[in-house]
């Protein structure tokens, strides 16, 4: 190996085993030959096992609790899961009442999202898909922040530019949500590469669903992350459905986890409704990604209890029994709750009073936002570029003139016209 190559390798900490399918020589240089013609048959390969610690009854058989998951932290996580669950219910209702235009819940995925968030550091930049507001909440995004975005008030830090649930939280190192699926995944890889250049000891995280995983962007991102040795966590929430498309119509292979090997990526499949397993796996994945400067793929198996969004009615394509099964027998909140109660770290009374408190806080933020004016209409012209172009300036003047004459037709009193 030349000195030049050694220097590059040393700098990048990018380990490529010499003898294995992943040797980086020209095709054929490390080939292993056979005289027996056999096609690989993935159907007869063992399924990638699902890592689980906490069973469905809330018990840990083998005592695999990491020391970093203290009782205090566990209760904090649980409370955040309850808050998320409550907030989801209230905002869903509010959409049904026509008070906000749109909402998406994370019901059934609370452990996957908050457990993974809790295992990350604040310095880890997160790219979400759209069903991960739990990450925002974990990092300190307030209920006011949520409500201001959902109501598009002038206090929304994204200036009312997007539909509800498309949060952005620079303060908490979480990138802005966009509706387009999977586009965030290669963005996360590039971000990780930049961090690597700057020697930052943090990972970049991309969340996506098993449906979005079918997009070409995910394939491109994973391949690039592996080749360019980017410390990236690919966290796939396999929740069983992409709107009405169940996993049997989404993929034929062994889920998303099986694809990792194709890219040479370290992979684990985890019980996404098991808070302990999620927390442990993400913690370990993060350490691996940093120590070896590599991507890691985690497939969190969970279930989407709610509808895809408020524009969906999932009774049209799945049975209520199926939903009830997951909601009662394999609920992430329920499983952790049972554990905590059994360990005497929580009680039904505390649950009741905390839930009441949540409701009060949520409704407080809700009512405040509902009565806060929207941003000035002229903000539609800002931030297209870093500075206003002459054409946009002309268009802004057009709107000004138009509103001077026709303003009474536009409910301008609902907007912050200053």
């Amino acid at each position: 190996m030349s000195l030049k190559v050694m220097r590059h390798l040393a700098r990048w900490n990018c380990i490529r085993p010499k003898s294995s399918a992943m040797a980086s020589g020209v095709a054929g240089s490390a080939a292993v030959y056979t005289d027996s013609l056999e096609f690989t048959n993935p159907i007869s390969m063992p399924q990638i096992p699902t890592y689980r610690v906490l069973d469905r009854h809330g018990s840990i058989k083998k005592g695999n609790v990491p020391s970093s998951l203290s009782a205090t932290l566990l209760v904090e996580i649980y409370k955040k899961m309850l808050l998320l669950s409550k907030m989801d219910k209230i905002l869903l209702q509010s959409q049904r009442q026509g008070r906000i235009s749109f909402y998406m819940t994370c019901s059934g995925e609370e452990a996957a999202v908050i457990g993974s968030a809790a295992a990350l550091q604040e310095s880890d930049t997160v790219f979400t898909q759209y069903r991960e507001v739990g990450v925002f909440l974990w990092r300190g995004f307030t209920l006011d922040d949520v409500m201001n975005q959902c109501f598009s008030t002038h206090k929304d830090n994204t200036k009312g530019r997007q539909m509800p649930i498309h949060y952005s939280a620079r303060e908490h190192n979480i990138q802005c949500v966009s509706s387009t699926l999977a586009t965030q995944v290669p963005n996360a890889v590039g971000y990780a590469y930049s961090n690597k250049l700057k020697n930052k000891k943090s990972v970049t995280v991309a969340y996506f669903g098993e449906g979005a995983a079918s997009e070409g962007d995910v394939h491109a991102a994973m391949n690039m992350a592996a080749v360019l040795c980017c410390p990236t966590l690919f966290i796939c929430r396999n929740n069983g459905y992409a709107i009405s498309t169940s996993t049997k119509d989404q993929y034929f292979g062994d889920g998303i986890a099986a694809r990792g090997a194709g890219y040479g990526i370290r992979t684990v499949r985890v019980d996404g409704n098991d808070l302990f397993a999620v927390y442990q796996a993400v913690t370990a994945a993060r350490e691996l990604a940093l120590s070896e400067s590599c991507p890691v793929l985690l497939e969190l198996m969970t279930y989407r209890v709610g509808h895809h969004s408020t524009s969906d009615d999932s009774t049209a394509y799945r049975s209520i029994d199926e939903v009830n099964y997951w909601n009662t027998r394999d609920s992430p909140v329920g499983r952790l709750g049972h554990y905590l109660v059994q360990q005497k770290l929580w009680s039904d009374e505390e649950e009741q009073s905390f839930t009441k408190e949540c409701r009060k806080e949520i409704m407080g933020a809700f009512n405040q936002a509902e009565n806060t004016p929207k941003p000035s209409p002229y903000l539609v012209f800002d931030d297209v570029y870093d500075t206003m172009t002459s054409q946009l300036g002309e268009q802004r003047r057009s709107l000004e003139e138009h509103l001077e004459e026709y303003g009474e037709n536009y409910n301008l009193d609902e907007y912050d016209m200053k």
Partner: protein
Amino acid sequence: MSCGRLLKRALTSVKKDGIRTAAGFAYIPQTPNPALGETTKLNMFQSINSAMDIAMEKDSSAVLFGEDVAFGGVFRCSLGLQDKYGSARVFNTPLTEQGIIGFGIGVAAAGTTAIAEIQFADYIYPGFDQIVNEAAKYRYRSGNEYNCGGLTVRAPWGAVGHGALYHSQSPEAFFAHVPGIKVVVPRGPIQAKGLLLSCIRDQNPCIFFEPKILYRMAAEEVPVGDYTLPLSQAEVVRQGSDITMIGWGTVIHVLLEVATMAEEQLGVSCEVIDLQTIMPYDSATIEKSVQKTGKAMVVHEAPLTQGFGAEIAARIQESCFLHLEAPIQRVTGWDTPFAYIYEPFYLPDKWRCFEAVKKLRDFM
């Protein structure tokens, strides 16, 4: 042999006098602003190389990546840059335009200057979603919490003599329709270096289309130092009083030749404007010219319908209606895919442009 290598070999066989075999035009060397100091003779790929070299030297975070950039690139634009800046900053990516552009957006979002090369503009489309839905909207949708302004996407563009459907496209019209990105096309080495440096340093995602026929055949004295040319500013390349001719890229040289023909043979004085930045474009320079001449023609290689000439024509009639003495002419590629053997009949060459000049002269 890869398409890139085939093309490279073909380009080296272009006649030394610079005549493009199929359609026939001559590159008209430009002269640099003397205030920019010492110059050296460079062709367009060399001037682009110089721009990237300077950018990467001055901005120690800047990275350059794409297919085959490590060895120098299929058009040699990145020659020597990996040796100079190392493989951490100049590197090959796997073959995936959506990945290259998606990755580039992420690099830029993290505050690192990203120069992403797409091997041919004809292949930019897998990255169209990333450009339109992510890059263009990154700042806007986040209320300016985030941006990917440090991203520049470069791609070889336009007719090359034998490129046919998939090595000749001029897709600027698709991108001009997307608020939030900038689209730039240089007409030669001097402009390529200055405009590319502006794009790299501009705080908005930019797409820089490089007329590939000009990579080797266009050579002129180019300032050796660090200089930028302003974006969103058109340049009046030749002053005139009777007809306004608007174009960008390769076609400017066709227009310059037609302007000479018009003067010598028809006694018509043409003003040639190089738009340079397609989006956001300098409408003021165009309007000022048309208000003077009353007659306008827009010329582009891209197909007629919905080409960027349509936007310019709409703008001119909106703002200069009472000054116009003839309908605005558009001389463009036909509404067909860019077909191989038909290239001489497809392109808006000097004869079709000359014909348009006559139509404008004879209208009233």
